[in-house]
């Protein structure tokens, strides 16, 4: 029923297996039906943009895939196998890394600790009991990645509580880039970024895709979307209403799908 299969992978060459398949998920919070029927796919090396109006359910969708919330109905498949993402740890182990819209950093820890949180470089002193942190190595590894994102940062031992909005966002993005091995989910990763930093992040997204990583990115900025996305999935009121190949779509079509002013046109397409 949805045009989900109509992607640019649907060509003559043997279609690779999708990295991620989200099938008809639904989610209700108390009186609010946040997701009614959401389906989407991400192939390896593909950049998919998830767009939609405020409150359309984009962040909720991402939280389902990253294991922060669990769907009421519907299935999620990773590399063809159904998975039960009961916690973010499960998603991480599957190689899924996420930048959340609210950034989710530990304010009381410093920049380096946040970058490596849950994945600290360590030396095992007593197996299974004491793992000593390799602080200097962590700092050493952090520097080039942050540099790549082109941002002014205070000393790396600064608590993230005192960072500026863009600096915080950069830390969160760097974290996902450092660890995302298969699928990277980015919820408005450039919302707080300056011109140069935005460009750096978009470049990074493209480079990740080149390496074969699947990228699902949420953005309200259509020019960013068209710069990086292979495919554009549109959510409206908790439903996927369009699944478009970026190259074959015009901006106004996407906007129309978002606002719902031309639903018929698109689904008829």
């Amino acid at each position: 029923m949805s045009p989900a299969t109509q992607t640019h992978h649907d060509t003559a060459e043997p279609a690779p297996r999708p990295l991620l398949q989200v099938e008809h998920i639904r989610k209700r919070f108390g009186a609010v039906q946040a997701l009614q029927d959401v389906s989407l796919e991400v192939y390896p090396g593909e950049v998919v943009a998830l767009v939609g109006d405020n409150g359309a359910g984009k962040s909720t969708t991402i939280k389902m895939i990253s294991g922060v919330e669990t769907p009421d109905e519907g299935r999620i498949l990773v590399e063809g196998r159904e998975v039960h993402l009961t916690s973010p740890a499960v998603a991480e182990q599957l190689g899924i890394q996420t930048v959340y819209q609210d950034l989710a950093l530990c304010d009381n820890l410093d920049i380096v600790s946040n970058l490596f949180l849950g994945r600290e470089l360590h030396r095992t002193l007593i197996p299974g009991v004491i793992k000593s942190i390799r602080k200097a190595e962590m700092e050493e590894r952090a520097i080039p990645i942050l540099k790549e994102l082109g941002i002014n940062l205070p000393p790396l031992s600064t608590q993230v509580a005192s960072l500026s909005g863009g600096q915080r966002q950069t830390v969160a993005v760097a974290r996902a880039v450092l660890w995302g091995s298969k699928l990277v989910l980015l919820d408005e990763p450039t919302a707080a970024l300056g011109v140069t930093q935005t460009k750096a992040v978009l470049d990074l997204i493209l480079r990740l895709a080149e390496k074969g990583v699947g990228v699902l990115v949420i953005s309200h900025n259509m020019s960013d979307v068209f710069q990086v996305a292979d495919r554009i999935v549109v959510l409206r009121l908790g439903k996927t209403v369009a699944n478009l190949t970026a190259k074959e779509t015009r901006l106004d079509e996407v906007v129309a799908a978002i606002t719902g002013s031309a639903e018929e046109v698109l689904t008829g397409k």
Partner: protein
Amino acid sequence: MSMQLREGKQQQQGGLAGVWRDRIAAGELGLLPVMLALVVIWIIFQSVNSHFLSGRNMSNLILQIAEIGMLGIGETFILLLGEIDLSIAAVSGVAAAVLVLMSGAHVNPWLCILAAVVVGAVIGVFQGFWVTIIGVPAFIVTLAGSLGYQGILLAFLGNTGTVPIFNQTLLNIAASYVPGWLGWALVVVAVAGYAAGLIGIQQGRRKRNLSAMSARSMTWRLVLLGVVSVVVVGALNSYRGVPVAGLILLVFVVLFAYITQATVFGRHIYAVGGNKEAARRAGINIRSIRVIVFTLSGVMGAIGGIIGASRLGSASPASGGGDLLLDSIAAAVIGGTSLFGGRGSVWNALAGALVIGSVENGMDLLSAPSSTKYIVEGGILLIAVTIDTMTRNRRKVVGR
């Protein structure tokens, strides 16, 4: 464009004085304010009663704070998580009861200790499970637990009353002292070990081109440690030497300070305390962290109880009662550990225990009437933490 990691540059700019100015401005003073408060308290008591700073009284003081210190460490772990443990004193009572009863049945003393610790651990696991898996607030779980363990204590000792310890090994925990020469040897080992660690780390950082502590700053730290430990050991040796129970406390503090500051597990405790949801999203198993921390707290409660029983030479239905609970939480909080999670250190608990212990000890020396004691204790406590708060005043703006 250019990423300017301002670190190196800035730290050299102002030199040592500049670093201190920045630190004071940022409120990053660590233990200094509490230590300042402690010194003030000591000076006051010493000026009122010349016995206060005698080697003998310092030795007493150390033994007096050993139990609160142990409990304070356990409570610090819990507070770092942003939880609270109201049962830690009751756990110490139950552990003491287990210890004396088993010892009374002529069980090998080491087995008695082990059993008491295991009881503490089991209680901790149970509480951690209830808080974490069922999701009942720690305040309630540990309050209910505290009632339950008081009941168990009564079931154990209600019919016998006070049970003395006869076993010399158990009594010795709180009654023996390190010989003078060994005390000095320990000072040497401590300073040398600290120096080795510090130099190793800083050289590693220099090699990697990271900002590192200046040689001057390192020297200062070493000298400070050296002077303090020489003075303390000297004073204690003028009496009977370093009390073994005090040494055990110190070992625990150093060990747990290492664990919280330098291990993956410790880092994760701070993360969970700072932002539980962020820690969870980072893939940290916050459940196991919490269960482990509650277990640790139970174990520390038990160890405290063992030391307490050894010192008193007995356990009774009153063990773990009285002000012990509030004193242990206060030890952690006075030192600067936040009740809201994510901020503090094990060293704080030691400093806090010293503050509380000094005030009580000083007031006992003055043998003031109970009413005066309470009022003065309250007053000193308030003033000590006020000093701490004012000196790190800017912290408020930066934090939370």
